[in-house]
Structures are given as structure tokens and as C-alpha cells.
């Protein structure tokens, strides 16, 4: 029981369409358990309900039906909502729209300031968080002068300074250039491996999904596939049916096998393919 970070039971989220008077179901009866220290990837194309699912994990949205428990606290418990948000931090897509202050370190301090942490402790947390994301040199800079990847790392530091157990990343790289994506992805992996944070990464990039320990594929508000990256991407046809792509290397291996070459189909990286060939 104690090693469960987030538990979702029969979670449904409905919302009313503004244009027509109909009820749309964004998330439909999802059951999902995230263990402490896990690196979970949620995959899905636009409108698959993955962002809605993420926003229910820290009480930004309350499920219409079913329960979400974060470290044993139900998100419907309004009195404990701030505890939940402290435990499960969230990094959003657009770095520009989540940075509040005009100086990097002031922004990182925003979370702990809200929690009423004493001043000395805030100072320490801000310095530590900036150290982890390797942005200490930019402490006194203005955020708008930083690159996209740097801004996103500042946003991550802002969450880290709240000392959460779990960090949810809602498409953190989709607005970044390739080098920014690499920076952010490395930081995320570092947080999981060195800081022991539970990571939930929402993405539609396949090469990012490969990094996780477990992959959940969502479509039309439901979980369609679940398992290790190797296990999930082996089902090339099924994934294509859901409107997603498999990593290029995996697809190459799949096609090679189909045309009669004896090769494993659970290949995820270029190195693996090179070894096999």
C-alpha cells in the first residue's frame, strides 16, 4: 500500500460542450496505479484525454465519477488539496505561461513562498533546485532572455523547490527545439534516477516514450495498451491503428522481419539494432 504514489479507480471525466448542449467524455473508466519511484509515460494523440488525466492527478480537475488518490489522499478532499499539489507537482507545455516572476530565482521561490516555508529554508531549496537542473549560473537572469529549454528547466526547478514526491510533465517538450528537448529530457531522467522522484511524462513523441519504464497508450479517453516500452511497441499494427507511430528503428526492424529477415521485433534504439545486425 505504501509504495503506491497515485491510484485511479474507475475514473470518468465529462464536460459540457459549449457549442452544442451535449456531454463529452474526456476520460472513460480509467484504472491506473503509479508506484513510487516509477517512470511512467502516457502516450496518445491530441484529444485522447491524456492531459485531462494528468490534471486529475493533482486535483486541478476533480473526476466526475470514480476516485483519484494521491499518496492515500482523495483529490475530492478540498481541505487537503494543497497537500496533494505539494506532493504531486506539475510542469506544463508552454514555459512562458508558467513563469511568474521577473527573476529566475524569485520564480523558483514562488512555490515554497506559497507554502509558507521559512526564509532560510526557501533560500536552500532554491539553490538546490537550480543546481539540480543546472541553471545556477542564471539565478539572477530575467526569464524572457533564456532559451526555451532553459525556461522549461527553470519551471522544473520551480516545482522541485516545493519538494514533491512525484512530478507530472504535461508535454514539456512539445514547444521546444531539438536541443531544448534533449536538455529537458535529460533533466527528467536525472530527477528519476538521482533524486528518486516518481515521473509521469505525457508526450506524443515516441522516442521520449522509449525512455520510460512503463508505457500507457491512451485513445478516446481509454487506456488501450499498457506495458514495458518493448512490450508495447512490439504491437506495431495495433499502435498504428490508434493513430500513433512507433519509433523509426522499431518500424524498420518490423518491416525487415516482415520481409523475411530474422530479427527481433522489440528493438527500440539505434544501438540495439546495430548490435543485432
Amino acid at each position, binding site marked *: 500500500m505504501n509504495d503506491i504514489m497515485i491510484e485511479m479507480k474507475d475514473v470518468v471525466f465529462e464536460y459540457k460542450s459549449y457549442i452544442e448542449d451535449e456531454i463529452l467524455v474526456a476520460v472513460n473508466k480509467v484504472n491506473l496505479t503509479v508506484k513510487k519511484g516509477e517512470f511512467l509515460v502516457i502516450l496518445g494523440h491530441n484529444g485522447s484525454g491524456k492531459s485531462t488525466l494528468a*490534471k486529475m492527478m*493533482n486535483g*486541478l480537475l476533480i473526476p466526475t465519477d470514480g476516485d483519484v488518490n494521491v499518496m492515500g489522499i482523495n483529490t475530492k478532499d478540498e481541505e487537503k488539496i*494543497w497537500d496533494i*499539489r*505539494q506532493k504531486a*507537482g*506539475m510542469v*506544463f507545455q*508552454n514555459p*512562458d*505561461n*508558467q*513563469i*511568474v*516572476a*521577473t*527573476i529566475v*530565482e*524569485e520564480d523558483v*521561490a*514562488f*512555490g*515554497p*513562498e*506559497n*507554502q*509558507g*516555508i*521559512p*526564509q532560510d529554508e*526557501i*533560500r536552500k531549496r*532554491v539553490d538546490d533546485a537550480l543546481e539540480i537542473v543546472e541553471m545556477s549560473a542564471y539565478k539572477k537572469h*530575467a*526569464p*524572457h532572455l533564456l532559451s526555451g529549454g532553459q525556461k522549461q528547466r527553470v519551471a522544473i526547478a*520551480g*516545482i522541485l523547490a*516545493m519538494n514533491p514526491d512525484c512530478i507530472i510533465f504535461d508535454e514539456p517538450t512539445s514547444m521546444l527545439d531539438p536541443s531544448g528537448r534533449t536538455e529537458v529530457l535529460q533533466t527528467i531522467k536525472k530527477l528519476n534516477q538521482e533524486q528518486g522522484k516518481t515521473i509521469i511524462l505525457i508526450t506524443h513523441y515516441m522516442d521520449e516514450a522509449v525512455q520510460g519504464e512503463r508505457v500507457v497508450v491512451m485513445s478516446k479517453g481509454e487506456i488501450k495498451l499498457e506495458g514495458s516500452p518493448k512490450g508495447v511497441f512490439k504491437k506495431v499494427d495495433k499502435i498504428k491503428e490508434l493513430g500513433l507511430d512507433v519509433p523509426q528503428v522499431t518500424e524498420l526492424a518490423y518491416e525487415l522481419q516482415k520481409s523475411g529477415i530474422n530479427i527481433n521485433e522489440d528493438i527500440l534504439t539505434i544501438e540495439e539494432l546495430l548490435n543485432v545486425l
Partner: protein
Amino acid sequence: MLKDITIGQYFPGETIIHRLDPRIKISIIVMFITSLFFVNRFFPYIFIVAFILIAISLSKVPIKFIIKGLRPLMFIILITFLINVFMTKGEVIFTLGPLSVTKEGLSQATFMALRLVFLVTGTSLLTLTTSPISLTDGIEELLKPFKRIGLPSHELAMMMTIALRFIPTLLEETDKIMKAQMARGADFESGNIIKRAKNLVPLLVPLFVNAFRRADELAIAMEARCYRGGEGRTRLNELKLDKKDIGIFASMALFFLFILSTRFI
């Protein structure tokens, strides 16, 4: 064109003026403005000029920065000057058609123009030597006593911080939309004023839509970071008054009291 806006521009430094507590600086500026409007003759202006010059030299802000801040207001200052020159009745020096220049008008106009120049220099010195964040912190602290009568001091300061934070972002966005619309044949540069104003519509609509979207996302991000208003909030950089701050405040208060008293001499 948009990059020239210098509101709230900060000139970083480590001088005595920069390090002075923002609350003290704001109070001094308030006293400064009050005395500017209280003074009714020329001679106390000698002290005001001395005060400004000493403050500028202590702050090590290049004089051209201050002059740059005055430039956009030159027009207003000029108009004030001209109106005062022609509209004040008194001893006529010479006549220009229906307008006549009087001795009183000339002195009144110079007085008004000087008052405006001092006003702008003083306040821009405040923004040049105080980082936006300590400025808003200072305002929040100074307004706190008025919370009891319903003034939301924390909310006001938070709004100012966010506004300052988003000025560069929105300027960049305006630039981007402008280029995008120009690429589609929008024309922002020709025609008379009315036509030009009409041409701004394709710029303003997307800008506003985006600003609202940004505000929404920012609000969610702030909530995710446990923001729940000013109650029980701590600060990374707490403002602290030391003896030097109080000393400077006291001597400045005396100085402005002296300037105010010149009215009654």
C-alpha cells in the same frame, strides 16, 4: 519601434541608492512630488536641483539615460510651456497677432516646465535604481496598513509583478503577429490615422485572444504551485530596514519639510 518603450527600465548597480530599502525610496519620492507641487517660487528649486544632481551622481546612472526618459514627454512639457506663456495675464512684453506674451506668463511657464522636468527625473530615478520586484515588494509593504479598509495590497502587487513579467513576452508576440500579418499583405504603415487604426484590428484581435489564453494557463500553473493569495505567504527576500535606511529617511524628511516651509517664508 516597440522596443523603445522604457517603462520600468532598470539600470542595475550596487550603489547606496540601489541598496536603499524600496519602501524608503518610494516614501522619499512621494515627499519629493508633494514638495514639487507645494513650492510656489523659484529659489527652493535650487535645493531640488541639488537633490536630484546628488542623487543621480550617487546612483551612477548615466545622465543620458535620464534624458532619454524625458524625451517622450518633451511634447507635453512644450505644450504646457506654450499654454502658460500665452494664457497668463499680466504685463505685456510683446504681441504675436492675437497672442501676447507677458512677463508673468513667461515666469509661470518656466516654473511649470521645470516642475514637470523635475517630476519625471525624480520618478525615473526611482525606477532606474529599483528592480521591478523590489519596487512591487515595497508598494505591497507600504499599502499593507490600508488592507483593513479593504485595499487588496498583495493582489495589486502580484498583478504588477505579472504585468512586468509579461511585457517582454507580449511585445515579442506583437512583433511576431505583425510580421505574420504583413506576410499576408497587411499594411500597418500607410494611410491616414483612421485607416491605420483600422489596420491594427488584425493585430489586436489575435494579441488579445492569446493574452487571455496565456492568463488562463498561468492561473492553472500558479494553482498547481499552491498559490492561494497572500495569506500565510513567506518571502525569499524579506525586506529589512537597517539603521542607515532610517537615517537617510529621517534626514530626507527634514530636508523636504524645510522645502515645504519655504512657502510660508
